[in-house]
């Protein structure tokens, strides 16, 4: 669920030319075919080198890293490339016995983001019973505030991302009764902006990633009727730039991860056909790294597993062949989610 990314760094800081729009340079030769084999290898080998400096530095989001990897491989039909047993052991060690919450890594502090990632991984492996579900439920319950919002951890800051994490965890573990859903909905709806979109808090700028969290939240709680669907869907389809790629808010650069957040939101609202799917597909594939496999945020940059998952996820939503169907609300394989929980999706 971590998507705080380069989007928050303005690449055109010194752009004084008010009339120049933000776009990527697509003059270089870019990949046009998706080599799945190479990407499978990239994801499977990711994080294998424990001596790798980056591995140490990213310990604090290890749980999410594993979720990105497992979902990605399952969608590509090769979940077998990862060691199920060691992953489940790892998750068990990350559950805090005191609070019930789950941390990113062993002996780290629990956090709602990593609790969700852990639940998602265990659902994929059909191993939810390997952790203490009631304790986890109590942890999520303890994070709800009086106004219905959720903290990320006990110190917390409030953010609509955490509202999504909370209901997603409780939906997948069948414990929705533990929180005040109506209040939670009230809080999320207090974050709606006049353009139909949502930010992290009331009055915060509409941002595609946060819109996904709020639309996903409303999908899980069956409250999609509260959306100004057409207005929001128009704002979302305006994210598509000439290159076919999608940005996260007006006048920002396109990024592969928005292919997921925008497209999944549109899919939940039954409006995925309002963007040009073919052009988007082209853009996503152009972000493939032909040397190592995997996707980067935009053409020519270094790939990473985060963008790889969202690139693959978006391609699945676009109906790309040889990819399993992905659930737009939970960003998990549809065949897994459909056995556990029925979120609300508006029809095309």
């Amino acid at each position: 669920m971590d998507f705080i990314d380069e989007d928050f760094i303005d690449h055109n800081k010194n752009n004084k030319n008010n009339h120049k729009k933000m776009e990527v340079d697509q003059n270089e030769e870019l990949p046009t075919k998706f080599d799945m084999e190479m990407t499978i290898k990239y994801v499977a080998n990711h994080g294998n080198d424990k001596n790798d400096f980056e591995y140490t530095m990213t310990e604090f989001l290890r749980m999410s890293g594993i979720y990105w990897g497992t979902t990605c491989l399952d969608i590509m039909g090769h979940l077998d490339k990862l060691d199920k047993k060691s992953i489940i052991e790892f998750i068990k060690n990350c559950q805090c016995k005191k609070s019930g919450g789950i941390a990113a890594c062993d002996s780290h502090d629990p956090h709602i983001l990593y609790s969700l990632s852990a639940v998602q991984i265990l659902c994929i492996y059909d191993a939810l019973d390997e952790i203490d579900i009631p304790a986890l439920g109590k942890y999520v319950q303890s994070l709800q505030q009086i106004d219905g919002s959720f903290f990320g951890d006990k110190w917390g800051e409030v953010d609509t991302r955490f509202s999504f994490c909370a209901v997603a965890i409780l939906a997948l573990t069948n414990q929705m009764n533990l929180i005040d859903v109506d209040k939670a909905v009230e809080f999320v709806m207090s974050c709606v902006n006049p353009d139909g979109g949502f930010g992290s808090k009331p009055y915060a700028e509409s941002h595609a990633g946060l819109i996904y969290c709020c639309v996903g939240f409303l999908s899980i709680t069956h409250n999609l009727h509260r959306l100004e669907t057409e207005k929001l869907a128009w704002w979302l389809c305006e994210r598509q730039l000439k290159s076919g790629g999608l940005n996260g808010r007006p006048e920002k650069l396109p990024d592969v991860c928005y292919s997921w957040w925008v497209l999944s939101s549109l899919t939940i609202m039954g409006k995925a056909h309002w963007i040009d799917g073919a052009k988007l597909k082209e853009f996503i594939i152009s972000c493939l790294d032909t040397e190592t496999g995997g996707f980067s945020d935009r053409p020519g940059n270094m790939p990473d597993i985060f963008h790889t998952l969202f690139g693959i996820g978006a391609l699945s939503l676009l109906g790309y062949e040889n990819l399993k169907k992905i659930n737009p609300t939970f960003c998990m394989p549809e065949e897994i989610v459909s056995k556990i929980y029925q979120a609300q999706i508006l029809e095309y």
Partner: protein
Amino acid sequence: MIYGYGPIVSIEYSDEYAKIIKCFEKVSSEDDFSEKSFNLTTQAIRYNQFNYNFWIFRRKILKNLKYDPYKELCWCEQLIIENPSNFLSWDHRRIIANLNLSCCTSAQEFSLTKRVLERDAKNYYAWSYRQWIINTFKYTNLGLLTDEMNFTEKFINEDIRNNSAWNQRFFIVSQRGRTDFPLVKKELKFALEKIKLANGNESAWNYMRGLLQTFGSKRLWQFQDLIDYCEHEYNENNNRNQHIMAFLIDSKIESVLDFCESNEFVQTQKIYDLCNDMANKYDKMRKNYWKFVYKQFYYDKIMNRKEKNDVSISGGVTQDETWKGKFGKKLESDKINPHIIVNEECSIEQKIKKKVVTKKKQKNEKEKPIHLGTSILNELMDKYNN
């Protein structure tokens, strides 16, 4: 790049960091809230400020140790300046400031965000933090909102497409309350001015629409200055900018549905032409959206007529003749729920198809004049079937 957390500061001593991690794990598992542990978190955060555990443990220590809030805020400020894309440092500052408000001033907090925004004008956290400052200090400093308005104007003048600055402006108007009509009027004028400078600037259009919808209690077609500008641009300057055309479409639709059009038929044709142009020429990427806009408008028009018990649809096709006979019953029983309309997009098409087929049949059987209303539908169906 740490999965989008921002560029990793290049650190040579990975062994050093590994040692720090080991120490950290020891002191945090033992709940060692000593000054030594505190200094360890300072070191650890220096190496890797993206690790949330270091920040959490630091706050646990601060709960138990006496500390100088000024020093802590100063230290945090340095980190924010170094990496303004790390929400952990922003959160930490907000938490410490909230616990020590007597040590903070709005000026100091604003100054920090200003430094960040001067280098990164769209930094999400900085703008969000400014909202926190205003909410925290507005009751003691009444000039804050005016100052912030001027602040956003500076950024908009530098980059007219800075969506964060526009969003902040909307936040300020919201704080002033819904009854400050002179302000809303002034802001609409501001938006129009900026729209004229850059027609393709989504932010200014969204701001204008947001104001009208939330505070203006106005419909789009009532914003006469903007209507005049757009009509002039479209008709005299052959301006086919998407946003101008979108505004013309939306304002015309509103005026027809509000029964404020003297010549509804002409406007309906115009709306069709504009939507058609958007779908096929000027905004092909979103052609399905523009097709939807027209279909939705037509459906709304018909439902409007039913509600008003108006038996004539423009163009001369009477409700009695066409709708009641074949599908009138079905329409009467449909509840007008905008969300059901969305789902019935396809079924409306089916209804229209049926109607056209019936009309064609009737034409063959008997020479009935085809009314203009029907011909629009025929054209529509031809286009959508291609």
